[in-house]
């Protein structure tokens, strides 16, 4: 696996975050299938190392944009379980006061723009955030999360090109989970990797094992440093896999069984647990304890959300304009 030299606190925190996201997603799925949770959901089970590894490389003042699949990014960037769960339940305690919902999770105070559910839509926006950092001479970095499918949108081309020509402090992170919704990436992209697309813009691109949280962290760290020191964008392709449906009740029948099986063996949390155990950075009891703490946190958040006030119907009319 990845280079060592990290303290156990740091490593266990990465682990804790990934478990938090996984368990959050599992709990949410259950609440959704039970009919308790409203709306629709796109979950990131299996892709936790991407969100956690990248966000671990960021400062609180750095800003991310996210997609229709934002739960992991939100939790990794510091939105609390309470704020996220509240939003998924559409409560006033949610990070968007119930106006956003699952697909628009975010809070600028935590460095996350409300997630943009239009595929590719966040790419120019993240570029503009980075432009502002550069113009204001702030040493902050923008990170744009997107899927493989998003790299076929015109917005990708326009956004990344502007990031490149203006040498902006932005990192474009592609979570390549092999599918855009149900469509295999091989049907819609002809190059071997997506990171090659970076060459079109004259910026570096790398393809990384996105299920190896430390590899992701290392690559993100490098890209973020590059951005922060004024050297411009990087296109970071993280190879991963979605081990749940695309949304809601999707049984993902388009994913071949064999592929799914391999993916389950390769999922990031099990791998990182093994890494920690093998190196005796934690014992199983400690890992179990983390899972338990995380579950308690989630459970408490569910209860708080269910007890939290619903928005009033007429709140619909608020929050459009400042004045």
């Amino acid at each position, binding site marked *: 696996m990845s280079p060592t030299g990290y303290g156990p606190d740091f490593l266990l925190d990465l682990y804790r975050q990934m478990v938090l996201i996984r368990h959050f997603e599992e709990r949410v799925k259950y609440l959704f299938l039970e009919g308790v949770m409203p709306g629709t959901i796109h979950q990131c089970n299996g892709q936790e190392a991407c969100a956690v590894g990248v966000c671990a490389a960021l400062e609180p003042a750095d800003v991310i944009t996210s997609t229709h699949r934002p739960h992991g990014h939100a939790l990794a960037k510091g939105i609390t379980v309470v704020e996220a769960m509240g939003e998924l339940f*559409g409560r006033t305690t949610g990070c968007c006061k119930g106006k956003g919902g699952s697909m*628009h999770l975010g809070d600028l105070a935590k460095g996350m723009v409300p997630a943009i559910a*239009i595929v590719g839509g966040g790419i120019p926006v993240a570029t503009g955030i980075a432009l502002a950092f550069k113009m204001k001479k702030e040493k902050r970095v923008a990170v744009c999360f997107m899927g493989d499918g*998003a790299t076929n949108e015109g917005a990708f081309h326009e956004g990344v090109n502007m990031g490149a020509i203006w040498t902006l402090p932005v990192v474009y992170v592609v979570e390549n989970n092999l599918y855009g919704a149900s*469509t295999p990436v091989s*049907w819609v992209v002809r190059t071997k990797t997506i990171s090659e697309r970076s060459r079109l813009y004259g910026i570096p691109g790398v393809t990384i094992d996105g299920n190896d949280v430390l590899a992701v962290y290392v690559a993100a760290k490098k890209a973020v440093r590059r951005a922060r020191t004024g050297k411009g964008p990087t296109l970071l392709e993280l190879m991963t896999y979605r081990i749940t449906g695309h949304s809601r009740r999707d049984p993902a029948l388009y994913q071949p069984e064999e592929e799914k099986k391999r993916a389950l063996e390769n999922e990031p949390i099990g791998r990182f647990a093994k890494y920690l155990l093998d190196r005796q950075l934690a014992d199983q009891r400690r890992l179990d304890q983390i899972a338990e703490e995380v579950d308690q946190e989630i459970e408490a958040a569910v209860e708080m959300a269910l007890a939290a006030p619903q928005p009033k*119907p007429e*709140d*619909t009319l608020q929050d459009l304009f400042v004045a």
Partner: protein
Amino acid sequence: MTMKRLSIAEALRECIRGEMRRDERVFCIGEDIAVRGGWGGAFTVTLGLEKEFSDRMINTPISENGFFGVALGAAMMGLRPIADVQYADFALLAMDQIVNQIAKMRYMSGGKLTVPVTMRAPVGVTGRGAQHSQSLEPFLLPAPGIKIVCPATAYDAVGLLRSAVRCDDPVMMFEHKLLYGSKGARAESGAIDASSEIPEEDYVVPIGRAVVRREGADVTVIATLLMMHRSLQAAALLEQEGIDVEVIDPRSLVPFDWDTVKASVVKTGRVVIVEESPKRNGVGAEIAATLAEEMIDHLTAPIKRVAAPNTPAPFAPPMEEYYVPSVERIAEAVRQVTSY
């Protein structure tokens, strides 16, 4: 004449299958429409069609502006594409191809070429928040060169889609998520049964012809899609209060069947227009404005529009419920104009 009861999603699927069998120039283009084990687009309409038409189900990258342009190019060369977006909101990405190219190409050519593109887009506020909820009718009505249809029943969906595919002009069909009757993983909560008995024979519903869904003497309610169904429910409610409501489903917005609407207004003198979009410059704006220009002497009460407020769609259920016109809001509007 045998009949089958089909949901809109099923009926559209069989209709597309029939058109593709009938005419080999017809093909489908869109995202996730031809993946085995997939969903047949976002709402199962094209489910399984790739098995029969492996060469004519063009599964695109996520490139809305791009594939609408591709549809235009193919149509000018004599093919008859059916292009769909997964949610109408995403058609905003393709506004250049739809409004600047598809809609204008024939006109700019001096009428020398034809653009037989059929477009399909699901609309409706359905628990998904602000970016998966828009009714795009108001954004296309100002664009000359596109016909617009909005079927509220499976029967009309089939008849209008046949007309669209066989028409040499660009046609946009808006379909409602809660009316599809999509099943399995793609079922919608809050769905309404819009299924119909679909005749075996090859019927069409002409573009530009409204239908009176319910005859009534006191007030004319005009609504399409989900709002048409809610208007019928409101009418049933109001019947018990002694108010006799006529419900007109225009079915086509461009061209619009003014004759049917005006005849009704002559009879009732009262008009309520219902729609799911924000009120400002919605579908009702043009209807109300035209009636104010041409029918003012027949109106015995002010026109009333029932619509969403001028905000994006909120997520939380209590707000969403407030946002979308309810049966009760429609009924209340009717009461107001009848008691004027």
